[in-house]
């Protein structure tokens, strides 16, 4: 069994040119565990799903370490993987591996009110939920992950110019939505942001 360098994990020092894959992965993991877990928690229906997204994404990174880009693009690469893992969850596909039992357990215990929190936020993000999927993703990646258009383009595999256009338009659309006080009635049920993926999974 090979373990990563704990000092690297704790220190969060990223050395992309490390000669040892174990060290490189340890650094990658340490530097990105928090951001990736945040990405997953902000989007997944349950804490367990968020844990699965983190586990699967890092497993892919471990197996494809040579393909993980260096520098800050590594996080974009991870977001891109996580996005697909989330999409798979929503389509109801089964997990291939079953890693991260402890993370699933501890995370569920750490955020016992996850579903309530999402429900509460759903009221606040009603306007966001009215947007199209792509507009919403562009806005979320900008505001929640702090990505710029070039980075979003990498995650979504869109031309950067198209992201800029999208972002500008999506902002305007969101502004109009927020300026239109429609209350909960205006919420469109079934939107990915505000409805539980597990419900869609069951119905699919």
């Amino acid at each position, binding site marked *: 069994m090979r373990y990563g360098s704990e000092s690297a994990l704790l220190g969060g020092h990223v050395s992309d040119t490390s000669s040892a894959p174990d060290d490189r992965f340890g650094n990658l993991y340490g530097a990105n565990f928090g951001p990736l*877990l945040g990405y997953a928690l902000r989007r997944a229906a349950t804490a367990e799903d968020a844990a699965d997204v983190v586990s699967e994404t890092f497993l892919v990174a471990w197996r494809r370490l040579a393909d993980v880009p260096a520098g800050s693009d590594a996080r974009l690469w991870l977001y891109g993987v996580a996005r697909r893992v989330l999409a798979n969850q929503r389509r109801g596909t089964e997990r291939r591996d079953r890693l991260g039992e402890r993370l699933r357990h501890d995370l569920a215990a750490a955020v016992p009110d996850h579903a309530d929190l999402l429900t509460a936020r759903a009221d606040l993000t009603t306007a966001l939920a009215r947007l199209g999927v792509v507009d919403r993703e562009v806005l979320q990646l900008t505001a929640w992950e702090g990505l710029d258009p070039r980075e979003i383009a*990498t995650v979504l595999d869109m031309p950067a110019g198209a992201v800029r256009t999208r972002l500008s*338009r999506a902002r305007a659309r969101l502004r109009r939505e927020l300026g239109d006080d429609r209350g909960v009635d205006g919420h469109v049920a079934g939107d990915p942001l505000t409805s539980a993926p597990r419900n869609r999974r069951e119905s699919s």
Partner: protein
Amino acid sequence: MTKSTTGPMPEPPYTDDDVMALPLDRARQELLEEIMSTPTLHTDNTPAPPADKPRRTRWLVIVASAAAAAVVVTGPVWWAQRGGSESTTGNVSSWAVRAAEDAPRVLVDAPGWEITYVYGFGSPEGELTFSNGSQELDVHWRSAENYDRYFRDRAHVSTGTPVELLGKPSTMFTYGEGDYTTIRPVEGDSFLEVRGGVGDRSQYLAVLDQLVFTDVDTWLAAMPPEVVMPAERVETIQGMLEGVRTPPGFDISTIPAEDLGDRYHFGARVTGTVACAWIERWHQATRAGDDAAANAAAAALQSSKQWPILLEMDRQGDYPEVLWEIADKVQAGRFPVAYKQGLGCD
């Protein structure tokens, strides 16, 4: 990667600080150890090369939906013959064609307009973005069951105005100057919403007038070039099968075309179908006590580690390793229980 503002964007349900404060140190360490004790096929010490450009991750391990069931069909190995037969070509692309038949096949019938982004092809809900370089129009298709909710939602935006959209009385709503949306009543299992920032009201209506329904071939041909088109599918499959050992009688018409995916996803469809056919043969031979046939099938699966298309895909994602893990199980004489799911041929 710095935080930037988006104006009126709602706060996230969790901030990074919230996440960092969660008591997960032990779980984090345990997961790391679990992952790093997972075997990889490539454990060389070569440092990862710098990415020459931002890379899209096409790692997806495809798990087939019920619609993508692969059926092992015996028939002539005609795929090596350039050109093939038209009827088989039709079979190969039949899923995509059926998906297109069910989809709202909308195009903008005006010079310069093309589809620039597709989301959800083959799904009950999706989105097409059209652009002519300076203007963009989004065409959403959504499930019929959501029509009332969306209409009610848009009715809060503004008073609806009757317009005609694709030959049907529809309702236009105004978000603001230069931002309009039109909802078309349910037709079949879905309804359309067309939203555009294409100029003023008259310009928007002019573009609406240029929307047309098209036939399947025209619509599929208008898809962005990076997707695998049905007309190109046979040639693409033939290319992907170069260097791939296929079972006797393997028929490429058995390769399902679940969606118009990219080369990685399509390669998974192709190699998954071949691998599943070998596994099926191995399983049958094993049960029949035909050691020679079983060994041949296992060897063929082992040869997948040299299949050029899988080596190509191995740089992009995880699918080849799934296939190789299964091949190793077969080689060890163990039935790969969930192979259909793992390879996308269930």
